[in-house]
């Protein structure tokens, strides 16, 4: 059974996971840091199902538990992420300073549409990736930077007092950099 699993994972990826697990044996709560290391190592910043299966077999953790942990924490991604991540704060302070409009205009600019999936509502965390895999848009409940509201995080850099124009400028800069 293991051989069939292994074929689907590249040898380099396997070696990396083996090394990560070996460094954390007999550590309680090691699963979180294993998943984190594997996700960070992935070029698209996500946890492929094959990797999860491999981790389960190697670290002797039930598949269901791995999936439970990976879905509980919103920073674990189960789908490929864009090259750039734009995270819009939807906390109360940012909401009152217009973060909903920021989010809507960003979604329109990136061609993500403004229709939500049927089983979600506006209060849910959002995670959208453009079809060209250049941008991922997500929302967060609060960055703790309410004095700078509305706050947007562009590739882990906090930008305060953002408006639609400055956000468009950030996007243009990122697009230019990638060319």
């Amino acid at each position, binding site marked *: 059974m293991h051989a069939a699993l292994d074929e689907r994972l590249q040898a380099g990826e396997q070696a990396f996971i083996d090394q990560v697990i070996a460094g954390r044996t007999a550590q309680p709560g090691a699963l979180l840091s294993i998943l984190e290391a594997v996700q960070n190592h992935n070029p698209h910043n996500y946890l492929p199902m094959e990797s999860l299966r491999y981790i389960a077999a190697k670290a002797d953790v039930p598949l269901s538990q791995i999936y439970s942990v990976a*879905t509980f924490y919103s920073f674990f991604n189960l789908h490929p992420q864009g090259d750039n991540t734009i995270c819009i704060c939807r906390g109360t302070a940012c909401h009152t300073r217009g973060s909903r409009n920021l989010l809507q205009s960003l979604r329109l600019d990136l061609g993500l549409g403004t229709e939500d999936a049927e089983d979600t509502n506006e209060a849910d965390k959002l995670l959208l990736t453009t079809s060209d895999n250049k941008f991922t848009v997500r929302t967060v409940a609060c960055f703790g930077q309410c004095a700078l509201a509305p706050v947007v995080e562009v590739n882990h850099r906090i930008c305060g007092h953002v408006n639609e124009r400055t956000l468009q400028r950030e996007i243009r800069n990122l697009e230019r950099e990638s060319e």
Partner: protein
Amino acid sequence: MPKKLQLRIDGEMVSALEGQTILQAARNSGKYIPTLCYLDGLTPVGGCRLCMVEVSGIDRLVPACTTPIQDGMSVSTTSAKLTRYRKIMLELLFIERNHICAVCVSNGHCELQAMASQMGITNVRFSYNYPKLSVDQSHSRYVLDHNRCILCTRCVRVCAELEGAHVWEVTSRGIHARVQSDLNQKWGESRGCTNCGKCVQACPTGALAEKGWAVEEMIKRNDNITVLAHRKGAGA
């Protein structure tokens, strides 16, 4: 041998062993505390909040199933406040999924339904969520109906602790939380499942049921799980 402790439950002096929970001490002395997520033999999690009790000297309510007893403790298991809170908890369980008893295999044999009628809940004061949930019929012998699930995690615990398969786990969080098998696969495709059916017998509602039963026909035998757990505990 653990130490014997004295405590008062509803004013009555009761002795119990050190390390026991308030719920165990109460059950052993014939006192009733309502529960849903608790199943004798499985690790208590304190999830359903129905077993909340008042302990004198503590401002907040504590869950009886996870609170260890202390010498000289004074517990009260019934009060107007507790009844009010327990009713709210049950009503919140009802609004979260589609608990439509009339078309449920467990109608008449459901712990949630029994608890509601026992507490005299005739209507729910909050608005229902009516989520659109799936029914997993992929397993050859059993059905998983998310509409009836109250996320008590009895199936999760019985599978992990007694069967050792750990097929079930609660995935995602908040209102999106679901009991799922393996890597979010269909139950029938789960490689770990041993088809033992312990999860079905442990389930307090009609969320997990055997195939082939019509409305009102699914009778669960969770006493078997308790017997099995105690036998296993005695063996260890």
